[in-house]
């Protein structure tokens, strides 16, 4: 079965520091990948998506992600974290066998220190 792995359950960074959240997806799957953010009490907001083309994709709020097929990875990065970035981040893979379905990672909770 196709799966998405987010190895880090919790990450703590200082405000202004750089951030990288890791995501690995099932090898060989079609690389339709997303990153969503969920702030406390809020729904899921799309940060960015990758379907094809340039492997470095830019998203909202200063986030970017790089798709690396050889490593089956789609890591999310931000050069300078703001306190408002504290939230839970989900990597999502779109499975396209039959009807299209989202496969969610378990999420990474980001804490930002002032």
């Amino acid at each position: 079965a196709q799966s998405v792995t987010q190895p880090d359950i919790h990450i703590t960074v200082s405000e202004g520091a750089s951030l990288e959240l890791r995501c690995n997806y099932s090898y060989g799957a079609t690389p339709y990948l997303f990153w969503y953010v969920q702030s406390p009490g809020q729904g899921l907001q799309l940060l960015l998506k990758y379907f094809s083309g340039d492997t470095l994709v830019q998203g909202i709020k200063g986030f970017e992600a790089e798709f690396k097929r050889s490593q089956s990875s789609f890591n999310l990065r931000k050069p300078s974290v703001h306190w408002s970035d504290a939230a839970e981040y989900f990597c999502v893979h779109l499975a396209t066998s039959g009807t299209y379905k989202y496969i969610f990672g378990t999420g990474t909770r980001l804490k930002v220190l002032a």
Partner: protein
Amino acid sequence: EAGVAQSPRYKIIEKRQSVAFWCNPISGHATLYWYQQILGQGPKLLIQFQNNGVVDDSQLPKDRFSAERLKGVDSTLKIQPAKLEDSAVYLCASSLTTISYEQYFGPGTRLTVT
């Protein structure tokens, strides 16, 4: 464009009681999804509709959960009777079709079963 609407936003009930959640998708979206998100986990798909027909309900605990989308627009998810382990956020999402790349999420309903 209006987003996905859900109500109520919060609900507290006692175990063995029943509860219902409502979702109104983005206008024109034929596919509607209900997800269950238990604290600390990624969302899990419960049921997927295409118009008023069920496409996938393989993860729906049918002994206590039911869902309908009678006119192919808004949808209701019901739990009867509720158990403590049903405490979760219930997310509704919609997409244009069953083979759309992107889903759009509502704010969710947080259910607490005591």
